[in-house]
């Protein structure tokens, strides 16, 4: 077998249009069940979109159906992350990008506020130290 064995037309093969996997509707039902569970028991739920086979175009169609709601936050943390509340309150779409703005992870979280949006205790502590340093420096200068 040599590379010459490769039919030339492979290279020119056009991008295939995608057959649907049929996973879209079950996914929306999973979200529906999770919302009910949150209302009844306060239970949070996370779905990793990378773990589900979706045909090209299907993810876009999912995002379209979820739409955008009242909150749209962009985090700057080793590449940006978008935290969007969809048109269904408590259904959050979290997209992590690397520094080249390529998507490296996409999750749907069913909760009041995604954990990563909250200020984190370690960062609060470090921030407090910075503020204290700044104030003591200012006092020394005065």
């Amino acid at each position: 077998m040599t590379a010459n064995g490769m039919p030339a037309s492979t290279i020119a093969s056009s991008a295939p249009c995608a057959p649907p996997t049929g996973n879209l509707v079950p996914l929306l039902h999973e979200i529906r069940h999770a919302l009910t569970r949150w209302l009844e028991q306060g239970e949070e739920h996370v779905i990793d979109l990378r773990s589900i086979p979706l045909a090209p175009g299907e993810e876009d169609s999912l995002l379209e159906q979820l739409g955008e709601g009242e909150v749209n936050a962009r985090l700057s943390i080793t590449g940006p992350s978008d935290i969007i509340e969809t048109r269904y309150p408590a259904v959050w779409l979290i997209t992590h990008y690397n520094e080249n703005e390529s998507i490296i992870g996409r999750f749907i979280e069913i909760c009041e506020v995604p954990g990563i949006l909250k200020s984190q205790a370690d960062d609060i502590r470090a921030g407090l130290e910075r503020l204290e340093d700044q104030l003591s420096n200012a006092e020394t200068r005065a």
Partner: protein
Amino acid sequence: MSKDKTLGETLQERGVSRRSFLKFCATTASMMALPPAMIPVIAATLEKLRRPSVIWLSFQECTGCTESLTRSHSATIEDLIFDTISLDYHHTLQAASGSAAEHAREEAMQENYGNYILVVDGSIPGENNGYSTIAGISNKAMLLEVAAGAAAIVAVGSCAAFGGIPKADPNPTGAVSVSDLIKDKPIVNIPGCPPIPAVITGVLVQFLTFGLPELDQLGRPAAFYGNSIHDRCYRRPFYDKGLFADSFDDEGAKKGWCLFKLGCKGPTTYNACATTKWNDGTSFPIEAGHPCLGCSEPDFWDAGSFYKALSTPTEDIGKTAVYAGAAGLIAGAALGASLRARKQSAVKNHERVTIDDLDQES
């Protein structure tokens, strides 16, 4: 990063925010195909980790595996991975050369004897040292020496895992895999030509976080190699309906139908390409219109033509495979076992294929 500080302490010192770290853990869990519930566990374990020493040996290889690894995700996430380990020896990546490089290897071995991780890429040639030596030491001698003090070995790429292309018929150098020579150490195989970069780093992180991962019968981590390409292929609905492309430019090909008849090895190939994908999750060969070559399976180079359909037809999978609705998981374990058995018989029956044969087929 100092060796006695934990990863958490070092990251904090460097001003890496907790949010960044959580993002890293979330994307790593996703990459490792772990349920999102594991994200806090990964965070808690990595945070407390002290930097383990890694020695990386490259034998008969094309450096494609290292190329693949160094293109893993963004520089920042990769930095985090490299911050997690102490890469004490790697011919291609280290600045030192000659005797200084070998000295670094010996020193790392002495300091961490019994505890370091040995990563190997490339196959190991037979007795004739002329095929591949490093600093006058034969590949085999170096492997045996370094493996003796390793806690575990990670064989990266199809060459280290199974012999790969150097071992292809007629195997002029007498190439063998790591597991052909080492029998008394845990070995994790990460095959692929090259392996998906995120899988290499994912296995390293998994190893550091949870210890030795669950392995299949070929020593591959189940988290990445548990499903066949076919189990997770987005063209699968066409396969199930019996809709196949018959050539690379017919109507079926244009409509994105299944590539089975064009030689797709997806049904007998276990890897994460269909979900993790390549180039930062952009696509994978089948999405680009090319059948899977099966590069992460043993002896893929000798398994007949890349463009000839698997010689043993697979079962009428349409009737047995079940898409498990909500989570989109596929009940593929039993199916996988039957396909693996069929692959073995298919490999046995494969005859050599020439370019003339290919012409006749197309």
